[in-house]
């Protein structure tokens, strides 16, 4: 009797489990599928993707792979397998490496629709820009005004005692914004009037000034930065009054804060990096047509002009900007960014990072 009961239970469990997976087994047999690898934070909603599917009949499956570096790493490891059709989110700090590794196939996108800023790092058809945004230092005006500190006009100002232990930056080996800002420091100190010192000296002085080096943007901004939304969340420390983030981060703060924020983007010429994010067709794919349709949709005026709320970045198309609501645009700045071409980054980055490692120990 007991055995019968056990057998019956096992049978029911088996039937239940396999009925649950019946959906999975039949997946992928209807319509066209487009497989995209993107970074975790890519903010396109499921509703928008469903809208695309309804319009074109193409199903979109997005696989998340960490940050921009994770996307590149996944694309390299799966090169030529046809596992993914498009990569979404490799930025210009990694693009030189991606191009050298010959990962992409040309897309048919019309490039005349893009802004000069979007095409400033690369103007070819192997990588199509879909959004842009500058990475720079943000500071908490409560601290600067409250303590009567001068607004920094040079990166060297952050080595002063007034910023001792009060600035958080991201580890350039583990964070995309951290890497972007790090590259800007290499260029900034190579081109400043002081020929005696370079970026390693600055980073070393910053280490002596107890700079907080966080492993991710979330950790630096949410946990350490006193001027951001992190102050409302769990585990907030708030020991940093300046942080490396985007020059439009204060705008996003204002957008969600009913036009109120104490965060300000610091405008120092050459001390910021214009991050341009690209979509690329991957070698080995059979979905050329579907991929081109998706890219055209992504950079269409209808979708791309919404990038400031879809993905918290500037649109890549000419004339596209940040929306004005709640001071989003008013609190954002477009600074004079550093100029570092993608092949120089590819050639120098491994060595620069090793030197950075030694400078901040």
């Amino acid at each position: 009797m007991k055995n019968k009961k056990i057998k019956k239970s096992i049978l029911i469990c088996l039937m239940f489990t396999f009925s649950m997976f019946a959906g999975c087994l039949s997946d992928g047999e209807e319509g066209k599928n487009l497989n995209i690898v993107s970074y975790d934070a890519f903010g396109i909603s499921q509703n928008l993707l469903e809208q695309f599917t309804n319009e074109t009949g193409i199903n979109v499956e997005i696989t998340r792979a960490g940050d921009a570096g994770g996307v590149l790493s996944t694309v390299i490891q799966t090169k030529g397998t046809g596992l993914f059709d498009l990569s979404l989110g490799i930025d210009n700090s990694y693009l030189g490496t991606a191009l050298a590794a010959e990962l992409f196939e040309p897309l048919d996108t019309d490039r005349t629709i893009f802004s000069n800023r979007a095409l400033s790092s690369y103007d070819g058809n192997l990588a199509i820009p879909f959004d842009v945004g500058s990475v720079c230092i943000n500071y908490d005006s409560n601290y600067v005004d409250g303590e009567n500190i001068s607004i920094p006009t040079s990166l060297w100002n952050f080595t002063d005692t007034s910023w001792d232990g009060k600035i958080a930056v991201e580890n350039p080996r583990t964070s995309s914004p951290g890497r972007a800002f790090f590259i800007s420091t290499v260029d900034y100190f190579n081109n400043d009037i002081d020929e005696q010192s370079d970026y390693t000296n600055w980073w070393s002085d910053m280490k002596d000034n107890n700079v907080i080096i966080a492993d991710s943007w979330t950790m630096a901004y949410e946990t350490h930065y006193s001027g951001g939304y992190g102050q409302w969340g769990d585990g907030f420390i708030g020991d940093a009054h300046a942080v490396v983030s985007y020059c439009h981060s204060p705008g996003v703060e204002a957008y969600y804060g009913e036009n109120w924020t104490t965060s300000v983007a610091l405008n120092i010429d050459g001390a910021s990096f214009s991050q341009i994010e690209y979509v690329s067709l991957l070698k080995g794919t059979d979905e050329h047509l579907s991929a081109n349709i998706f890219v055209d949709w992504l950079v269409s005026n209808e979708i791309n002009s919404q990038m400031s709320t879809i993905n918290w970045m500037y649109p890549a198309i000419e004339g596209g900007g940040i929306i004005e609501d709640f001071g989003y645009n008013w609190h954002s700045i477009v600074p004079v960014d550093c100029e570092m071409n993608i092949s120089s980054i590819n050639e120098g980055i491994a060595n620069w990072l090793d030197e950075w490692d030694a400078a901040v120990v």
Partner: protein
Amino acid sequence: MKIKILIVVIWSMLVLVPPLISWQQLEIVAEQTILETLGNFDSRFQTQGSISFTFFVAISSTILTMIIGIPLAWNLGRYKWRYHIILRSIFTVPFVMPSILVAMGFLSLLDWFEVIFGDNNSQDLRIYSLLLAHAWFNLALVVRFCEPILSTIEESYEDAARLLPSGNTKLKRFGRLWGPLLLPNIIASASLVFVFSFTSFALVKFLVPAKRNLEVVMSNQAEWAGVEIPALGRAPSEIVLASSSIQLLTIILALAISSKLQSRSQGHHLSSLKDSRKEVSFFSIRGLYILMMLIFIISPLFALISSSFLVRENGVMIWSTQGWVAAFGGTHSPTNVYQSLYSSLSYAFLTVLISLPIGFVLSDSINELEKEDSKFSTILDILVMFPLALSAVMVGLGVLVGIIRTEPELARVWWIPIYGHLMLATPFVVRVLLPAMRNLNPEFEQSAALLGAGYLKRLMTIKIPILAPSIIVASSLVFAISLGEFGASWVVLRFTEYTTIPVMIGNILSRPGYDPLLRSVANAAGTVLLLMTLILFIGVERFRPVGRGGEF
């Protein structure tokens, strides 16, 4: 017998092949030897201080867990409480909670600490909270390992000890009677606590952001480890290779000690099937103690639940159900709670169906090898526990490279994520079934064999019915572990259609939290997971017989 050998071989391959592939891939990329890399550990920012911090955290957490856990196990094992089933379930639930949620719970508690004491960000406080979080997480191990012995030792033995000069004080009785009885179980549980504290990831990352243990170091390098592109440098591969070597050696040593001591823990012959627990009321000193422990366990869970109802609005936190609505509506994540729960339940069911027979055969094989006094029993036991010693980074890299080298399309197959669940859950099937098998009277099977019953007949009519309560307990544990599995699913390619609840939470938390609803959505999804796990354990606890439910 052939099937048994086949399953042992398949398990060995499943466990060993991915790390070996990772190892080989990392060796190709790395230029430095492991020793050279280790020599440079403190001169690189990425690894500075990580080895000493890992050992400090693992050892301190183990000691603290024992200090908190042994008295709790004593009070649960020697005394019978009203609502005992619910109590045991609550004390077990932390162990199967996804660590990312535990971290969020403790971070919420730190905020309360700040409200009360005006400080929550000193480095020392963060480290203390990490150690406490590890103790909270691993308490169930101590309770489950020690409680069965404590609850089945008859009172008469202690009465007898009281009459002897060497047992006439509590301290002497502990030193002469309980200490030696419990020691193997204490050390076995301590070994596992050490392993879990050594490999802790989310708790270290979120609670002590200024420090890195080896698991965090490896996770930071995961993106570039094994990738052969000169512009990306070779340091990530070298660091992962060296870190994983230290981790593997340390943990295998700990597991070997654990295995050896566990196999010795059955030799006291003082246990009886009689429930030897004394009735006790909550209105007593012991009751107050149990209440305090309950507050300790429930606080982070309560903080997590309450956070799911808190939403930021115009610079103040307000109570709202918006997070719950968004979690079930899927407006802030690629999947909603219904879809993720569906995936979670499907994977959990399948994990139970596969890991139970594998775990049963592995336990049976170890048990038989032990009876033959074979050294292979320890080797097989370590092989069973081996997945717990592996970094998710090594497993993820090995699986990805292995699949790409053989059949890339496999990466998209729906059953591939089960691999991670199996690796994590099967060791616990063995930990539950093996002690129960050791307690089986061999005469039952011998008599049946004499009467001509074959292996299958004996299995179905004797072993499985007798072991049924332990099988049910193992199933619930596997189900809960699978529901909460995060690390392995996170590092293997994450396809949206198979998103489980922990992965959904990870997806939400990896997005910038500008949107005030995001964190509440994650907490709401976490609360669903927590409640499901709690209900499951309470439902299954009554199948656990006193003292015979296995050591976990």
